[in-house]
């Protein structure tokens, strides 16, 4: 920037004390825990768990309609919250993740600012949460320690999600799994609030969670396993994928969703690859290597705990996923979900989940390459995989999506 004056409203230290920071929802369980971590550090966080047609309508009103669907939804969710009258707009800040990658998603935050301006709310500060320090917000500086804590929250979230998915289709008492997941999340958040050294008791936490889910009364029948991969927001957010997970469970499937932790590890790993491929950013390589190893280590701890317990399917180690990716794609593909996306398809298939839905926003650029572009080579190498790509968009009719999902399901049951 040639000029020193900033083009965005900074989140100042004064604001930290009295501003409520609204957070968009993507993965409810994870985000509730992450928010608690940040609250511990003095931020007045609040998760937006709103739903309904007015979110996308608001988004379409304030965002360039050719922009990707996730941006339309998240911005729509923010602005409808600000316009709802529930908050004093002068005492609210927004937070959004920014990767700084080569996909247009790194510009969501700027689109959000433009939308705020359109809505006459340009004074609302937007915090960029990023590993790349793309912006400067004096009131929101996270130390490496806080990042570590957040990573743990993500790990817990991944485990909660995975256990929930493995129990839900089999529950004897409808609704019990959801209630348990909510309850455990609440208890875990409380633990984070009161016990500031919670992350040194990971093993106990994992055990507690597995015991709680293990005690749920469940049927013994075998369900069809369906994996969901795709663009990160659409893959996870029910708002983005028209409650895909629920639809699949209603159709009698067990959903398998790869965890968020892998995506974060991917984010660090590709920076290491950059140095190896292009010889750039050599100075940060040692620190990032350490971070990468720490992440692998933490993941291993979780995997070992689940394996030792023996009752549930454990996540696949990141390094194994990476190894699988080499079949169809190079490690240098880093924009969007990069090589991780086809790797997750391969990983699911490898671990016995042959039915995979790739959920993506309509016209998603990286997905041309890493999603739809990798389906043919994957099917060639693994004819048993049953892959379908579903586009999500404000204008796409649900019937069209459902019809394609049903086709995949009927093929799955023919093959099984």
């Amino acid at each position: 920037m040639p000029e020193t004056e900033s083009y965005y409203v900074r989140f100042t230290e004064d604001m930290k004390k009295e501003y409520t920071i609204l957070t968009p929802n993507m993965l409810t369980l994870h985000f509730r825990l992450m928010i608690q971590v940040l609250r511990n550090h003095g931020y007045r966080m609040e998760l937006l768990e709103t739903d309904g047609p007015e979110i996308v309508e608001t988004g379409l009103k304030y965002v360039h309609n050719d922009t990707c669907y996730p941006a339309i939804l998240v911005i729509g969710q923010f602005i409808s919250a600000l316009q709802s009258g529930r908050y004093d707009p002068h005492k609210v800040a927004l937070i959004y993740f920014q990767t700084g990658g080569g996909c247009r998603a790194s510009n969501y935050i700027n689109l959000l600012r433009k939308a705020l301006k359109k809505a006459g709310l340009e004074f609302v500060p937007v915090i960029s949460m990023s590993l790349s320090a793309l912006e400067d917000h004096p009131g929101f500086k996270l130390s490496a320690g806080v990042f570590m804590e957040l990573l743990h929250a993500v790990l817990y979230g991944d485990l909660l999600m995975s256990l929930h998915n493995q129990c839900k289709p089999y529950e004897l008492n409808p609704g019990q799994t959801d209630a348990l997941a909510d309850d455990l999340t609440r208890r875990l958040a409380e633990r984070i609030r009161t016990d500031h050294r919670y992350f040194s008791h990971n093993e106990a936490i994992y055990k507690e969670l597995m015991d709680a889910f293990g005690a749920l009364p469940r049927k013994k029948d075998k369900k069809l396993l369906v994996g969901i991969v795709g663009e990160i927001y659409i893959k996870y957010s029910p708002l983005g994928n028209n409650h895909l997970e629920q639809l699949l469970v209603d159709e009698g499937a067990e959903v398998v969703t790869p965890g968020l932790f892998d995506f974060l590890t991917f984010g660090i790993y590709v920076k290491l690859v950059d140095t190896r491929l292009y010889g750039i950013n050599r100075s940060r390589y040692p620190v990032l290597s350490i971070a990468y190893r720490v992440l692998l280590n933490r993941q291993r701890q979780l995997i070992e705990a689940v394996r030792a317990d023996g009752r549930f399917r454990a996540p696949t180690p990141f390094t194994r996923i990476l190894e699988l990716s080499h079949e169809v794609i190079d490690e240098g593909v880093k924009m969007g979900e990069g090589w991780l996306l086809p790797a997750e398809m391969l990983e699911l298939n490898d671990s016995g989940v042959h039915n995979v839905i790739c959920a993506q926003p309509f016209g998603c650029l990286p997905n041309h390459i890493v999603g739809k572009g990798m389906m043919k080579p994957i099917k060639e190498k693994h004819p048993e995989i049953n892959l379908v790509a579903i586009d999500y968009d404000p204008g796409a009719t649900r019937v069209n999506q459902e019809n394609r999902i049903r086709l995949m399901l009927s093929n799955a049951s023919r093959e099984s």
Partner: protein
Amino acid sequence: MSPTLSLGIDIGSTTAKIVLDDNGKTIYQKYERHMSQVRQKLYDMIAEIRPMLEGKTFSASISGSAGMGLAEDCGIPFVQEVYATSEVIRALEPDAGTVIELGGEDAKVIFFKGGIDERMNGSCAGGTGAFIDQMATLLDLSVEQMDELSLRAERVYPIASRCGVFAKTDIQPLLNQGARKADVAASIYQAVVNQTIAGLIQGRTIEKKVLFLGGPLYYCKGLRQRFAQTLSLKDDEAIFPEYGRFAVAFGAAIYARKAGKAFTDESLFNALTLGLRARSASNRLPPLFATEAEFDSFTARHARATVPQRRIETYSGKAWLGIDCGSTTTKLTLVAEDKALLYSYYSANLANPVGIIRQQLIKLRELCGSRITIAGSAVTGYGEELVKSAFGVDIGVVETIAHFTAARHFKPDVDFIIDIGGQDIKCFKIKEGAIDSITLNEACSSGCGSFIETFARSMGYSAADFAGLGLRSRAPVNLGSRCTVFMNSSVKQSQKEGATVEDISAGLSISVVKNAIYKVIRANSPQELGRNVVVQGGTFLNNAVLRAFEKELGADVVRPQIAGLMGAYGAALYAMKLEHSTLISAEDLAGFEHTSKSAICQRCTNHCHLTVNTFTGGRRFITGNQCERGAGLKLSGEELPNLYEFKRSQIYGLKPGENRRGRIGLPMALGTLELAPLWHGIFTHLGFEVVLSGKSSRRTYEKGQFSIPSDTACYPAKIMHGHIETLIEEGADTIFYPCLSYNVDEGGDNHYNCPVVAYYGQLLRGNMDSLKRVRFLHPFFNVNSEKELAREVYSVMRESFPEQAFTKSEVKAAVNHGMAAQAAYRDSVRREGEAALAYARSHGKPIMILAGRPYHIDPEISHGIDKLAVSLGFVVVSEDAVAHLAEMPRVRVLNQWTYHSRLYRAAVYATRNEDVQLVQLVSFGCGVDAITTDEVRAILEEKGKYYTQIKIDEITNLGAVKIRLRSLIGALEEREEAHA
């Protein structure tokens, strides 16, 4: 034991099919359109065969997209339609290789060899049968007539296959330019075929024999012919079975037995009755009018916006004629000396605007007699040039200027004008009496206006009656606003859920308005549009649209009573500067004849397909050419500088070099169209003969279209497949397209490539089988550091050519050579750019920065727009030829793509120079340009410059481009006059 009798039901988006099967024997079958009354229709159809079911037990199942919810409500087993099809084909045709099935909304392909692979079209390509229906309406033919005509085609026009909206955008001008209906009909079918191939085949081999199923393929002989021809199928390889329409229903009958649920006639009817009662609530919107009083005040307010009129029967004196030959309608007006309206006419084109205008002119000449002298005439709209040459109309005026002229006359203090016609949406901001900005819709928003009308007609209503119903709706349905293909699919969905015609009419109006406001105008607030908003265009004659617009905007607007005639009225006003007219005389009109034939232009290697119209008196009008040459016009004599041409000469002119170590092919697409000198320099220096795939043509695209996995990617990427095929044909044993996450660093926050440019090599590797026969290099390179690049190239060369024993020092020298060649190319572009600017200034020529991407120099990608701009009198420079003349501006977005930062700098340069205009080229599907366009626009408009955007794709109708460029010229002139 399961019953022998089985009932198969298939309810698609437009038709319902039932079959009754007794132990493998069909004892009854019926196929009917359901007009979206799905549940009632099915009930009635089954009631007809109730006697056959009485006293028996049977199994039953439902299939089809519209059957999904119904099956659930009734408790009848459901089977997905593609699954049902593959069940039935496996049973009946065990040697089938491929099934292609087209329905009303969906297209499906099933491959049987090597593991069943079933595919359905993506969301964009929706509406196959519905598209054919709509196109027939557009041609003013029944589907049967259109089919028959198509068999008599002499040629096939290239028509966009991306989706129905794009295809229609291509078809409409063909009709208006006088193309033969038979040829257009065949071209429509070809578009369907291409769309199926691009969207569904995606690189798989089509194994024979091929079965064609579904309604459209059963009824349309011409469509069958096009499929067989395109896939090169012999007669015994393309099977169109008699049961084609019923395949899914048969599959459902087979499935029903497996599902094992037994019915009696009574239990079935109980189930169907349950289905009749169930109603799912879909997404609804508030009504257009909350109260009767609101409606009354609305009506009263708009009744006041009239124009003065005079009786043509009594008037005598001079008069001026304005003709607006639009995409779907033709309008004429005659104005008196005091600008009062003497005569007006408005009619649908019915695919024959010339015939309509001839009749009208005969009538007008009669009415005028000797009392009224037509002192001048002007024509505007899509058919401008055709009508001008056919009838000797004095002047052509670009439609934006015609509409602006009319609106300004109507309301001199107007701040904002929006015109929604049949095909296009145009918006103008007016400041101090001059045009401040013009915005035209892009392809996706096309055809909104005519869509309502076509839809109304298909439901059996006139446009006015249909609108009237919408005003009374209590709960309009929410149909989304992306485009008419998506809306059409939403309409069907809502009908199945029981929405009334009233609710759909209102819903459509709201959708069209939202599309205009949020996708075209993109205003921040009603205040920004100003206090005096004029709305016009035929679509605003629909009161529901008018009301929806006011509601969405939250402000009252003025709709002139002659809203549909404004283009023609403006043209007439424009003609008032004339004294003597060359308009065709009454005598010549009587003997007027018009013929059209097709031809291929031989004047350059483009070989454009031409339509030659000949009129009585030997006047000719030629269309279809990409330049002025084929039209028989003389070039202006002087060749104005054109940086696109210069870049082409440099990039495509690279010499292959000597073959000492092998042949390496460079696909001339995406990033290579800029970095070719670098790669060429390295490889020739290393002793390779470098084979270039050359400029693209439509044929290049077609050659590669079978292996494209994502049909929504941009055309510059999709055409890459054809370049690879070309290189393989030319015998390159190695092909090189590197992966570059980072492009050349020219400042900015970062210097990425977009994901598609960066990683297309990864996609090619996985999707193009032909690449398995050659060595395909797609390494990750750093083009910003000579040292790094040398290291990387060395490691790739050593690994890929172990037998060649490359040494580090020779690679280093080669990379050094390549980097120098690239720098020389960059400098030459800049130097040439400066020379072009200097030329323009010394010769008093206006300058256009045609700002796009390096790959837009490909004539097939930019469709000769650079040449068109030159023919309009501009000196054309590219963004990279002037970006170095301005600094990087502060932008409100992350400026981290190299190509983008050039756009921003070029825009800054444009703002600093009075004589420079910037026109941005945007490839359809370019996600990142959703961000740059807003930013470039902001940079320009902040300094009072016009922003013009041209969206280009597989096919671009140059007519629409011309309108944009001429509008820019017109606006500049208007502004100059206003300030003079």
